[in-house]
């Protein structure tokens, strides 16, 4: 069981590098178990550096870089065991225009195997959706579904 677990960690690490490099157009990323501790207990260490940069700890990453790194981590788990659906709640808010595009390209790719529900205020993200649900509160405090747009309308 320990063997299998360690092999899975290695696969997740490879996925993590791959997805990270796609979101950052390059760079290095590694995921590993804390060394010197029982693998069945060890914490998960992440070390990343965007293309050309040197990083000493995750805290030095910018807001947008943290978001992309977390997305890469999550999707690296997906590639092992795809979850049937994926809900993203305004994760595109801290991203600049170019990173929103990279993020959407990744979502498009993964949407072939998983269903995505994305909450967003971003017009570019809305344009990528197959179906758009509009929610408002005409009456204060009471949610109401107001519109449904299907792509191609």
């Amino acid at each position, binding site marked *: 069981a320990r063997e299998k*677990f360690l092999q*899975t*960690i290695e696969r*997740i690490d490879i996925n993590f590098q791959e997805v990270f490099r796609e979101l950052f157009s390059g760079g290095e990323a590694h995921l590993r178990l804390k060394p010197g501790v029982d693998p069945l207990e*060890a*914490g*998960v260490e*992440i070390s990343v550096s965007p293309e050309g940069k040197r990083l000493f700890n*995750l805290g030095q990453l910018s807001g947008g870089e*943290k*978001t992309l*790194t*977390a*997305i890469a*981590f*999550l999707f690296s*788990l*997906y590639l*092992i065991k795809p*979850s*049937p*659906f*994926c*809900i993203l*709640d*305004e*994760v595109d*808010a*801290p991203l600049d225009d170019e990173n929103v595009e990279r993020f959407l390209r990744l*979502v*498009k790719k993964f*949407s*072939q195997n*998983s*269903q*995505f*529900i*994305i*909450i*967003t*205020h971003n017009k570019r993200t*809305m344009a*990528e*959706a*197959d*179906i*758009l*649900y*509009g*929610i*408002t*509160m005409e*009456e*204060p*405090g*009471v*949610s*109401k*579904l107001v519109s449904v747009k*299907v792509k191609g309308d």
Partner: protein
Amino acid sequence: MYLSRLQIFGFKSFLHKITFKFDGQICALVGPNGCGKTNIVDAIRWVLGEQRPTLLRGERMEEVIFHGTKSRKPLGMAEVAITIDNSAHLLPIEFTEVTITRRLFRSGESEYLLNRVPCRLKDIHHLLCDTGMGVGTYSILSQELIDTLLSSKEEERRLLLEEAA
């Protein structure tokens, strides 16, 4: 396997019953601040068996029931029903369509249904464990989880990793 339908009634800001049909690979939910979008995410967590009120932004589970507005009285029950297409039989159950329903009453009583047949919460937990959609799933990402994932707290990353491995 995918989400085909979600019905929310009496849960948080959903005074009126609202039905979402997720007929597409990418569905966007949009609307002004405070209109109920994250409440929908809470409803999905809740119907899939979430027991921690803090994960639903509350202190007690009772807080998920519509608590009224300046002009509306509170409701006595919250109900959420999620329908999942199971043609690929990822869920270990013979039905090709599975509807999980959860209700909570102000009295504190709860009801759980699997395709309209009463069951216990742990039947729902058993059904969903190992599918990637159970409690503790890595299927829901928000700004809060992003900060936790990149903090020095390695346990959160560990828990999600174990869910997948």
